[in-house]
């Protein structure tokens, strides 16, 4: 189990955005979290990545082959160091930095040389920095945007910006990758390429993938298990075929009890 969430609850004032959600992801799985708008999916992501402190519940992660860590109240940069990375629904690159620099920032948490090294510029620091550049290039090649390495991030085409976000997340060396609506705004061809990329990442980099997505064809083809949320609660869990037939899910999406 790489991610184990128990009874996670998040209140905003009187509003319960996430209500006792349990969720588990095993090593190498691709799991999707779906639900109508406002169901609490992104809030759930934010609780897992430490951007919000959940009201109650626990979040535990375990890098394959090592001990589980409780990350419930950890600060975001430490959670990232534990091996969990995410992307955002709306693209959040560092727009004024180059594509390569964007990825290099992600390597930061894996480096050992401190500020003293940065000032003294000793050999270890220089070697490490050289390695960072090489690693970052590799990440860009993996997602297929190596040719744009020295471009300013804001000048990239939309699909490439999405890929850059993934490359940057990979640079932090995660074992679990959280993707918040990775296909948002993509055309069908770009979406197909994205599916291929996600599958390749899982095999080549031994990643487990957890995604929020509205594009149902993507969710149904890509994911092995699906969690469905509505009004902050889990209403269904299962394989794509089961979830698709689940009356509660159909009701949540269509608003009517169509099975009756």
């Amino acid at each position, binding site marked *: 189990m790489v991610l184990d969430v128990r009874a996670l609850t998040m209140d905003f004032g009187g509003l319960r955005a996430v209500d006792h959600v349990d969720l588990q992801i095993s090593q190498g799985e691709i799991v999707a979290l779906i639900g109508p708008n406002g169901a609490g999916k992104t809030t759930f992501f934010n609780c897992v990545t430490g951007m919000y402190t959940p009201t109650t519940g626990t979040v535990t992660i375990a890098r394959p082959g090592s001990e589980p860590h409780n990350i419930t109240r950890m600060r975001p940069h430490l959670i990232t160091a534990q091996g969990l990375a995410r992307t955002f629904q709306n693209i*959040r690159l*560092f727009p004024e930095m180059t594509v390569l620099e964007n990825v*290099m920032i992600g390597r930061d948490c894996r480096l050992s*040389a401190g*500020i003293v090294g940065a000032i003294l510029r000793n050999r270890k620091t220089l070697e490490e920095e050289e390695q960072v550049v090489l690693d970052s290039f590799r990440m860009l090649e993996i997602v297929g945007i190596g040719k744009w390495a020295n471009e300013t991030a804001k000048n990239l085409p939309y699909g490439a910006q999405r890929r850059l976000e993934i490359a940057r997340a990979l640079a932090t060396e995660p074992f679990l990758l959280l993707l918040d609506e990775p296909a948002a705004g993509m055309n069908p061809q770009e979406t197909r390429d994205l599916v291929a990329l996600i599958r390749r990442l899982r095999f080549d980099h031994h990643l487990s993938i957890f995604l929020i997505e509205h594009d149902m064809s993507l969710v149904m083809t890509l994911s092995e298990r699906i969690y469905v949320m509505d009004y902050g609660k889990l209403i269904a869990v299962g394989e794509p075929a089961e979830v698709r037939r689940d009356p509660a899910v159909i009701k949540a999406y269509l608003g009517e009890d169509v099975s009756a």
Partner: protein
Amino acid sequence: MNYFLGLFVSGLTRGSIYALLALGYTMVYGIIELINFAHGEIYMIGAFTALILASVLSIAGLDALSILVIASLVAMIYSAAYGYTMEKIAYKPVRHSQRLSALISAIGMSLFLQNYVRLAQTSNFLPFPALIPRFTFLDLLPFRASSAQFVIFVTTAVVMILLTFLIKFTRIGKSMRAASQDKTMAMLLGVNVNRVISVTFLIGSATAALGGVLISSFTGQINFFIGFMAGIKAFVAAVLGGIGSIPGAVLGSFVLGWTESFGAGYISSDYEDVFAFAILVLILIFKPSGLLGRPENKKV
């Protein structure tokens, strides 16, 4: 012509000092969107530290140049410690509150530090020794500009180059740029944003202290209140250049320095401050984002 050159150099000197201070304003604003009104006090504390050290060292019989170097370095370190502590005490606890809370906290910090120095030292003006030695090869404009003025300008230029290098090419510089563009995202990529903010305060305070030492040894006197006006002027310079932009702060500082110096030289020295603030009003009316600032993008 000589008169013009004299004013030009005097503007350059002022501009250099403003630049050393304005850097701190603009860097801090770039990262945490706070106008650190206590920044001028750090400059004043730097000057006081150097004065105390210079007095001790001159008793020990060192020559002026080594006194200047040692006093500047110690003042920079000491003031950096002040800046670091100030951020931890007064700004970090209110970072997630409204912006107004942090601003009030900054004004409080400024008043506290002024009065602390007044009580711990004195409210009188103290003479400050001329620490910058005279280099004859820098006597480029005899009777119009002293070699000390050129020393100030050259020191500032060196600091600017080092800082540009730090921000463009080092890891901490990259983290600083990332944090100024999107703090949350930087944090999620594993950047320790608290550390980045601390480093920003350390650097800003050290350059401010250097400015304090240099200008005090040029003007020859200090008191607890010198940070107030210098701080406001440097703030004007930072806004003029586009707050948040480092090249902007440097450009704004020199524009402000020359405006004051030429205004005082050709019109009337009584109106020196009027020129500085008139320029602030004009920029706020006609180009609120500053000379090199980007128009503010509202995040969705």
